[in-house]
């Protein structure tokens, strides 16, 4: 694909602008692309965000630490469990609370289940953006099992609000483990279906290979993280580089692909689902006994100071930067949203692609708009 330049074109004659979004079937939520097009080729893309801005960071300054629980899951509704756990871990780091081992394992299990659910949705949404509707619903069929599974312990399907400072709310039992094992077995068989139906499909290959290449340097420059970065060949995963919860106990790999195109990102996500299943299995096999919650006061008061806690959501490295002034209310709470940086890289890579490719690239980067807007 040759890069179109606007140097030798009379702008008034050839280029026109297209508003893709905020209401558009494939902009997962409310995101607005202001595209400058030459025919169907994108010359310039600008992302206009903030349509779902709710001011979570300001809200945090208005409420005690406990009251921020529900907000954390509502930032990235697709990996609410991971955000929730991450928030709890950030505050635990700030207060120096030691979490019981069983609680940490349960956190890992639930987070990884949530990651699988999120990846399934991300992958299938990407496939739907390319035009195949049926795989999307097959993916949802699998995802539904996870949601049902998590509902049995958290009582909710999307905004789990399950982790608490010092542990988790509800213990998991044998029935949960059995259903999770059944799900793992089922999921492993489903990979064949996905490979046959999607990955091997010639149209899918043609649409994704070589489209939307993010090189390593661009990824570093734009702060891309998560499966998008690993699709560009950088072996970085917070779960490995700074093990939180108890990820250091588990044996798993970080799948990477060198190509950096849509196909690579898609394959990395599928491979990550496989690794997550491995982690869940290991955690359930070695689930220690003990309490699920440390002895934490009803309302915590962290000491003055600040801390940064980084963790891996389904979309990349999330960070909570909390500044405490020694009261029960955070002085400042900043969320590093991975989708924010992942989306910005699109303005760099989209020019020269077709509108149809834009949808594919956007799907393959897999951003959640409420997380960007916060």
């Amino acid at each position, binding site marked *: 694909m040759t890069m179109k330049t606007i140097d030798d074109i009379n702008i008034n004659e050839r280029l026109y602008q297209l508003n893709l979004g905020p209401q558009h079937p494939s902009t997962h939520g409310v995101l607005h692309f202001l595209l400058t097009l030459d025919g169907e080729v994108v010359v310039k893309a600008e992302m206009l965000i903030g349509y779902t801005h709710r001011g979570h960071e300001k809200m945090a300054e208005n409420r005690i630490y406990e009251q921020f629980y529900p907000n954390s899951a*509502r930032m990235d509704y697709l990996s609410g469990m991971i955000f929730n756990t991450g928030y709890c871990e950030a505050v635990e780091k700030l207060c120096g609370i030691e979490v019981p081992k069983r609680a940490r394992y349960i956190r890992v299990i639930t987070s990884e289940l949530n990651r699988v659910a999120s990846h399934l949705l991300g992958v299938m949404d990407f496939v739907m953006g390319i035009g195949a509707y049926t795989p999307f619903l097959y993916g949802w069929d699998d995802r539904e099992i996870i949601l049902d599974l998590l*509902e*049995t312990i958290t*009582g*909710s399907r999307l905004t789990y609000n399950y982790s608490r400072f010092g542990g988790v*709310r509800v213990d998991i039992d044998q029935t949960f483990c059995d259903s999770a094992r059944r799900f793992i077995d089922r999921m492993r068989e489903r990979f064949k279906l996905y490979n*046959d139906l999607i990955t091997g499909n010639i*149209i899918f290959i043609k649409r994704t290979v070589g489209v939307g290449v993010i090189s390593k340097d661009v990824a570093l420059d734009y702060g891309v993280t998560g499966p998008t970065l690993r699709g560009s060949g950088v072996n970085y995963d917070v779960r490995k580089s700074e093990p939180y919860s108890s990820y250091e106990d588990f044996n798993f790999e970080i799948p990477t692909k060198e190509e950096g195109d849509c196909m690579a990102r898609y394959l990395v996500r599928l491979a990550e689902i496989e690794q997550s299943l491995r982690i869940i299995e290991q955690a359930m096999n070695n689930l220690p006994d003990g309490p699920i919650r440390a002895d934490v006061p009803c309302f915590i008061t962290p000491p003055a100071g600040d801390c940064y806690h980084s963790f891996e959501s389904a979309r990349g490295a999330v960070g909570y930067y909390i500044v405490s002034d020694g009261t029960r209310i955070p002085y400042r709470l900043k969320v590093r949203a991975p989708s924010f940086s992942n989306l910005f890289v699109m303005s760099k890579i989209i020019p020269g692609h077709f509108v149809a490719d834009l949808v594919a690239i956007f799907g393959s980067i897999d951003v959640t708009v409420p997380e960007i807007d916060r």
Partner: protein
Amino acid sequence: MNTSYGFKQYVKEIFTGSKSLIIGMGITLKHMFKPIVTVQYPRQKPIMTPHFRGHIEAIIFDDTKSHHCVACGLCARTCPSHVIKVQGEKTKAGDRKYGKQYFIDFTKCSLCGLCVDVCPEKTLKFSDEYELAFYSRWDGVMDIMQRLEERK
């Protein structure tokens, strides 16, 4: 775009491509005859799990045949959305306060469950009601003590 293709590759791609398409069609055909997996909602009611987080409800304890609410207001203060209002009364001087009215505006409730967590008397629980559509916003404001009387 694909100018560097050799003729061999061109032919090969046509054949592998057609094969992959036929495999895909086989999969969807197979799925056509599988049983459906969706829940036919109004005809078929889903069963809620014991941990399901609906709106809150007062537990009926066996010893008093009623709730244990002492109207301490901790739930109201913890609520991130400020949707809880508790009113207690003392039946006689020196006695404990007793929760008389407990209003929750369910339309603004984010179902976080903090009220259940902090309750010192452990008298709150989640209900398993999920069909909560109202005709008016005011129908979302419910008095859970009254609901408790109805349940008795």
